[in-house]
């Protein structure tokens, strides 16, 4: 069965990464690219079982925040991603 987009594709492409709207829109998908590793059993930090539990937990409690370690890593990446991109250019 073909599953069509729930929103306009151009809308998704226009979202600012890190924004609340982008964070919410990620939930429209079964998986995100950053979850592919754990989903395949090839995660660096998380197993398939951990991903499964995290996604089930989020589904039953959508406002649940990530753990402190994951939040710290996400925040560090967010802050320095612009430095990295500038260096690459």
């Amino acid at each position, binding site marked *: 069965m073909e*599953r069509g987009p729930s929103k306009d594709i151009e809308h*998704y492409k226009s979202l600012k990464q890190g924004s609340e709207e982008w964070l919410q829109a990620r939930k429209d998908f*079964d998986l995100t*690219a950053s979850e592919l590793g754990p989903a*395949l059993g*090839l995660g660096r930090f998380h197993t398939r079982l951990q991903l499964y539990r995290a996604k089930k937990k989020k589904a039953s409690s959508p406002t649940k925040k990530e753990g402190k370690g994951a939040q710290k890593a996400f925040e*560090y990446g967010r802050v320095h991603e612009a430095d*990295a991109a500038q260096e690459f250019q």
Partner: protein
Amino acid sequence: METGIWPLYYDSFSLGVSPDRLVIDPENEGAVVATYEAKCPVSGKLMNPPHPEYLLQVQAQIHAAGVEEGYLHVWTPEKSSYYRVTRDDLLWATVIKVAERFVVHHLRRDVPPPAAKDLSKEDDALLRSDIVNLLGATTTMISI
């Protein structure tokens, strides 16, 4: 160029892909020619080769953006490693097959996957091994 989510829709599941940047060709009406992903490890340690999780992410970006290559930049305050990742459709078909099983057989049916120590006994074990080998073959370290 900054961007948002590039969706990929398959028969039985969907994938949301957010490249950190898109590389465009200004001489070709701003056409997207590659994707760019930065990883900034909190540990400050570079790893060579990059972890398969990162390479899977770049392959997803390449397929979502419909380009032939993507760049992976592992950044630390002291130094960086750069990798060029090339599109591999055979690899991607295998990735989608295993990802689909996770979504359909586990998430949708509320069946927890086996613990990590039992992964080698699964049908997917050989596919996972193929995926890791193919990922390595698509990746080249470059200097910039």
